[in-house]
């Protein structure tokens, strides 16, 4: 399988990365080179093979259902590029 520039633009939009025409062009070539490389997986017979979900077989631990953290809005917003009164500020999304 290979991708065209329109597909790269669509995927970039999905990934929320703005790309210029030159970048889209270059990335199309690079992505096709990577997709060409991974194509060899089609040779592998995977009939009846379970997909891996966990690389080490352990039972998921459950923690106590109690509050162990929180009440730290200041710490949570400390690194925000723009914030006010411990709220994140973003461009207007609702008219």
């Amino acid at each position, binding site marked *: *399988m290979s*991708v065209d520039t329109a*597909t*790269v633009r669509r*995927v*970039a*939009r*999905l*990934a*929320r*990365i*703005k*790309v210029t025409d030159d970048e889209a062009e270059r*990335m199309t070539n*690079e*992505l096709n*080179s*990577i*997709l060409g*490389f*991974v*194509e*060899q*997986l*089609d040779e*592998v017979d*995977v009939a009846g*093979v*379970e*997909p*891996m*979900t*966990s*690389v*080490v077989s*352990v039972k*998921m*631990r459950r*923690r106590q259902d109690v509050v162990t953290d929180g009440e*730290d809005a200041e*710490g949570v*917003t*400390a*690194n*925000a*590029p*723009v914030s006010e009164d411990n709220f*994140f500020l*973003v*461009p*207007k*999304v609702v008219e």
Partner: protein
Amino acid sequence: MTDLTSLTLAEARDALKAKSFTAVELTDAYLAAMEKARVLNAYVAETPEKAREMAKTSDERIAAGKAGALEGLPLGIKDLYATKGVHTQACSHILDGFEPTYESTVSANLWADGAVMLGKLNMDEFAMGSSNETSHYGSVVNPWRRNGSDANLVPGGSSGGSAAAVAARLCLGATATDTGGSIRQPAAFTGTAGIKPTYGRCSRWGLVAFASSLDQAGPIARDVRDAAILLKSMASVDPKDTTSVDIPVPDYEAAVGKSVKGLRIGIPKEYRLDGMPAEIDALWQKGIDILREAGAEIVDISLPHTKYALPAYYIVAPAEASSNLARYDGVRYGLRVPGSDIVDMYENTRAAGFGAEVKRRILIGTYVLSAGYYDAYYLRAQKVRTLIKRDFETVYAAGVDAILTPATPSAAFGIGEKADADPVEMYLNDVFTVTVNMAGLPGLAVPAGLSAEGLPLGLQLIGRPFDEETLFTLGSAIEKAVGTFAPKRWW
């Protein structure tokens, strides 16, 4: 007094205990070495004040007889580890100015044992790279050079700053992380020892996430013993990471120097690549001979799905990365580039904040997870991953204790040398290491000799799950036969 930075971590530990010098003196020696070595670009943030303060506290604890296992020992921390109030950007522009309000579990374990932080180490952006050339802070220069040449070489990646700093004596040891070879490949390129432990051995809490099912923390150190000492402190079960495993952490140092007699070492025929340089092949044979002479039994094995590990990795890792890196949106931390509306702001921020390699991987990951392609790519890759793991399980069930392979297909290459190459050519650096991440196994890279051009070359030992001890035993046997390697100082 001899140069304090020439001591190994174990030697410095013992000398501090014997009160031959103080932790402050040791730390000052490293801070001075770092200042003289800035041309290597190994550190992206130096923390001298914090280091001296921690060293002073260590001296007080030593005087009070309350020294921890790493008391007063100065370490470097990869920029991927969250360190409270200190530069943490995974060497990306998109995390500009980020200073976490919390500490990663692994670094917290090191400080609890008394270690001293010298600063944050350079790396490939978000750990995506094999040469440290994708860092927002520029390339790291390998302290090693080819015989008779002053051309700058890469230290490998992604933990290139960690490997270069250890090799150049700019810290006693360093933390690193490994998703597809990011500890073992730079260790091999710099003549240092590095171990990627079993998935789940160290907590991932507070590490900037790349590919969560593959990422694992580990140390890079001057020798096998130092790596064993560091791993013991780094490893722990952690309620904040449910994939961390509740198995006691053994005394890894006790495994160093033990006899290898009777251990069965597998030599996988699939790692003998077409066109592999003769000196890599010769190095591998040297490793086989060393272990055989030390009393190990060498057996030929087959890991039939080896060649599919790298292509499967380049589906699984970008898929997980595209999901993990969705959080960098210009709202909660780091860089924000304004836009006409919120989506425009996201797109501008991510376009300006991510470098080319990171964008490439996010796009690949987004594509293979997108509607209509999930089964063909991601699901198939995860099935192939099951087969790769099964290959290892089969040989271990047949009585093999560990596997010996080369660590990398070549020695370190020049900075910029692969700049115009196809991205896949760079990916091939990890051809021997990536299988280990796909199967979640422990892998140790140990220096085993020098190339004809005078550059270090490494071997890799792959172990059973949670049997890092056997790797330290075997690694120390190789080290005993070949010695350790240090670059000639030119900086």
